[in-house]
């Protein structure tokens, strides 16, 4: 059935290449919003270790808040959801797109609209924050590579804003 659906992306599939930075759309992936009072319950269900410190990320799982994690996995990945434990695991794959911002100017370009000090944002850190008026999740994958998760409907606006910043 899925072959009959046409995938529409809110941003161009051709990367934006500017001096010192490249901005491109990441491929489809599976995303899960994880909520639980006790991290141990989620660990029992998912059979993985969860990062406990807010802002830490580990093996594709980011700790966003005291009871909230965000799991990203390759497209098609599944997780057990029927556990009987007091956890909430919700597939939010199509809610967001991911833009990859890469190059020596990556942090500088993101800071054009994000008030965090990304020069002092360690590799492996992940956080929810804001870019101008758009809520985003920023994950520092490497010294010069960030993943920016944002809701699809903000994609078109965000693309114009960030590529504009990149071209200056």
């Amino acid at each position, binding site marked *: 059935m899925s072959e009959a659906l046409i995938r529409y992306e809110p941003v161009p599939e051709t990367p934006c290449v500017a001096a010192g930075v490249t901005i491109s759309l990441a491929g489809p992936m599976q995303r899960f919003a994880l909520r639980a009072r006790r991290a141990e319950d989620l660990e029992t269900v998912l059979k993985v270790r969860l990062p406990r410190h807010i802002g830490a990320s580990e093996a594709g799982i980011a700790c*966003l808040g005291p009871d909230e994690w965000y799991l990203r996995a390759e497209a098609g990945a599944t997780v057990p959801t029927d556990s009987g434990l007091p956890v909430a695991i919700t597939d939010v794959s199509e809610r967001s797109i991911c833009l990859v911002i890469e190059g020596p100017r990556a942090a500088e370009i993101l800071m054009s609209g994000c*008030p965090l000090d990304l020069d002092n944002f360690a590799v492996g850190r992940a956080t*929810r*924050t804001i870019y101008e008026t758009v809520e985003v999740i920023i994950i520092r994958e490497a010294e010069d590579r960030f993943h920016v998760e944002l809701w699809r409907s903000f994609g078109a606006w965000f693309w114009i804003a960030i590529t504009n910043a990149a071209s200056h």
Partner: protein
Amino acid sequence: MILIHCPYCDEKRPEIEFANAGQAHIARPIDPSGESDADWETYLFIRANPRGRHHERWRHVHGCGRFFNAVRDTVTDKFETTYKAGEPRR
């Protein structure tokens, strides 16, 4: 831009990530139907509006998502302290 210390993230974060959520330490009556109209009105609508030190709820809405309490000076807009929800008034 003001930096606000989030007691859950345990770091100072930009003001734009936060939302004010009104006066803090207002407990919902255990038995609403046992309240007099005047007491219920006070609970629902009557709030302090001090010039100076004020206890407020704030939410790190574009961050960890949590509500917490803060003491802010309404004249200078300076945050004296912030602490987790459920902790005693400071």
